[in-house]
């Protein structure tokens, strides 16, 4: 099993590199658990950061769509994925979701398959996960199973992560910052760092997640862009809204 990765989801020179826990060049199954039901979007986002951008097949359970909303292409583009490369299915029951996922995992030419399940998914058994892994190994596809509102059950997965959202580093002007998560490596087949907790933050410039010391999340990152375009002819007025200090330009 190669321990290095072709695609580096985390920035080079990040404070702490987790190359061992990353995906090998394909053919592995990672499980991502949302710590609470409210962390569904965080878990989804982390899965997107973990897989290689490219042809992505995404199978969602209908309940996940009802609970946390339909996929939105501009948001995917913000996270560095090309929406035109994404094909997705929204299916009612976990059984069909896994069937479609297995079908996709068998196919060469798909860079990643995301399977999103909501609630305790009975059909996702040890056998089912083993089947998925065998299929992915044969085709070299990356596989991510995202569980929302579920507790971990035995499976053949390479790694199991738990994702919990963190308050972001608020930008100047009181604006919400970039996504920040607390990621726990619940188990890994070939890593000694099980149980370790990292804080990761999305780096919008490099389009990747970066590890941060937790206290770093409390400092203020630079502004990324003005919200309203600056006036060309007039002098720039300084708006200081009382109380909530909104930034207008």
């Amino acid at each position, binding site marked *: 099993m190669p321990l290095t990765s072709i695609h580096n989801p985390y920035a080079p020179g990040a404070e702490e590199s987790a190359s061992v826990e990353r995906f090998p060049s394909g053919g592995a199954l990672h499980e991502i658990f949302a710590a609470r039901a409210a962390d569904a979007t965080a878990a989804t986002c982390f899965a997107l950061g973990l897989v290689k951008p490219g042809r992505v097949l995404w199978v969602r359970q209908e309940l996940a769509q009802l609970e*946390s909303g339909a996929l939105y292409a501009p948001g995917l583009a913000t996270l560095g994925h090309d929406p035109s490369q994404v094909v997705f299915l929204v299916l009612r029951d976990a059984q069909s979701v896994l069937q479609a996922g297995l079908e996709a995992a068998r196919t*060469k030419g798909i860079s990643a398959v995301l399977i999103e399940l909501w609630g305790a998914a009975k059909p996702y058994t040890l056998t089912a996960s083993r089947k998925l892994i065998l299929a992915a190994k044969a085709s070299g596809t990356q596989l991510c199973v995202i569980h929302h509102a579920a507790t971990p059950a035995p499976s053949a997965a390479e790694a199991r992560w738990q994702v919990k959202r963190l*308050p972001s580093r608020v930008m100047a002007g009181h604006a919400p910052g970039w996504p920040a998560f607390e990621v726990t490596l619940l188990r890994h087949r070939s890593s000694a760092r099980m149980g370790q907790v990292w804080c990761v933050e999305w780096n919008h410039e490099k389009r990747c997640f970066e590890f941060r010391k937790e206290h770093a999340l409390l400092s203020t990152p630079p502004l990324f862009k003005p919200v309203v375009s600056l006036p060309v002819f007039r002098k720039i007025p300084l708006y200081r809204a009382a109380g909530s200090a909104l930034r207008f330009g």
Partner: protein
Amino acid sequence: MVEKQRGALRLLACDALARAAGLRPSLTLAEARAIVPSLHVGHMDLAADHAALVKIAMACDRFTPMVALDGMDGLLLDITGCTHLYGGEAAMLGHITGWLSARHLTLKYACAGTPDCAHVLARFSTITDVGPGDEASAVTQLPVKALEAGAETTQALIRAGLKSLGDLASRPSQVLTARFGATLSTKLRRIMGQEDIRLTPIRPEPELVVEQLFAEPLRNMDMVKAALDRLIEALCQKLQSLDQGGRAFEASFFRADGATRRVNVESAQALREAKSLCLLFALRLETLADPLEAGFGFDAIRLCILRSETLSQNQRQLDGKVEDERSEAELVDRLVIRFGREKVLHFSAQDSHDPLRCATSVPVSTPAATIGWRQDSEALPRPLQIFAPPQPIEVMAEVPDGPPMRFRWRKMLHQVRAAEGPERIEAEWWRGGDRSPRDYYRVEDESGGRFWVFREGLFNAHMPRWFMQGMFA
């Protein structure tokens, strides 16, 4: 059969026995009862009649692909080029009539060079088969009523002493056209076989057809599948020689008891590999909600291509790229067949500033718009998941037109710790509808949940309302 017409219940159709007793259509029911007191009557159900006729037409598809409805009570079959399969015209006629009579249908039929001539002969004459070029002589003795030109015209023709079609044909057509209009003379020419029209079949004509007839009905499903696979192979060879690939396929299973079952398969890309097509059909047959049942056995299977595209031989590149694209298209095909066309989606970009309209999800079979997606860092942050339609929330704001301070969504109270906005997005006035402008805010609550909420409306007569639009990661 009776129906209420012109204020009275009138006979519309009667069987042979009733005819023998002197009843005929257009008689009122009271008169008919006076003649035959023990008359059995039923109400006319034209819709059911039509449905039955369409069903028969579908079943007649086994004789020729060109089947058209002829009025309310007739079928036209274009058997051009099909007769040799049955060993001649007469043999084919015998086969068709035998097949239909065996299903307890009483029929009147005729075979002629033009559809109009056959129509007239079947209804007004006892001649059943007219050789090519003999149409005019076959219809000369028929009454002018056969033109079906309406009671007034028929009356006028008879008054003028023109009693048969032969009489009419002997007059110069310009005179007839001047007196009765072009429709009549055209119809006459068509009946006489001097002018031919093409049928408009009730089912579109397939682009390519292969079929197999069985001497004995096939009852074993495995054998049926094997026969289908052979047909697929034959079809793919034909496609290969034409440099074409099929996009929509249809297999028709003709059961011995007259039922016809059609199974459709569509592919995401032009396809002519026998192996993958066999797989697609096998998958489709497995997942049918109403499984294919052999019952009395199938006596014919036909495989058609409804839509095809030019498909040149794929050249494999050194890195095997073409191979990948193919297998991916096959995957999409399999998913579409298993889960339905509307379940497999991709994104389509629209040139619009409306956040809901600018990105839509459409089935993969629908081509996506070609406008690219903004991936630069200048693009405004957008949520990963959105709610369509947006969900109403209760909001408390510090100042009326400021960002929310706390809000209640799905019964949960969220305390806002950071907010950015407003980003005002107006409705697209050129699309009509008077939606109020929306002020969007990016907010983050104490636990780190990041949301996209908006206030709809201005502070005028109506109070603005707040909605949850989406969730950031």
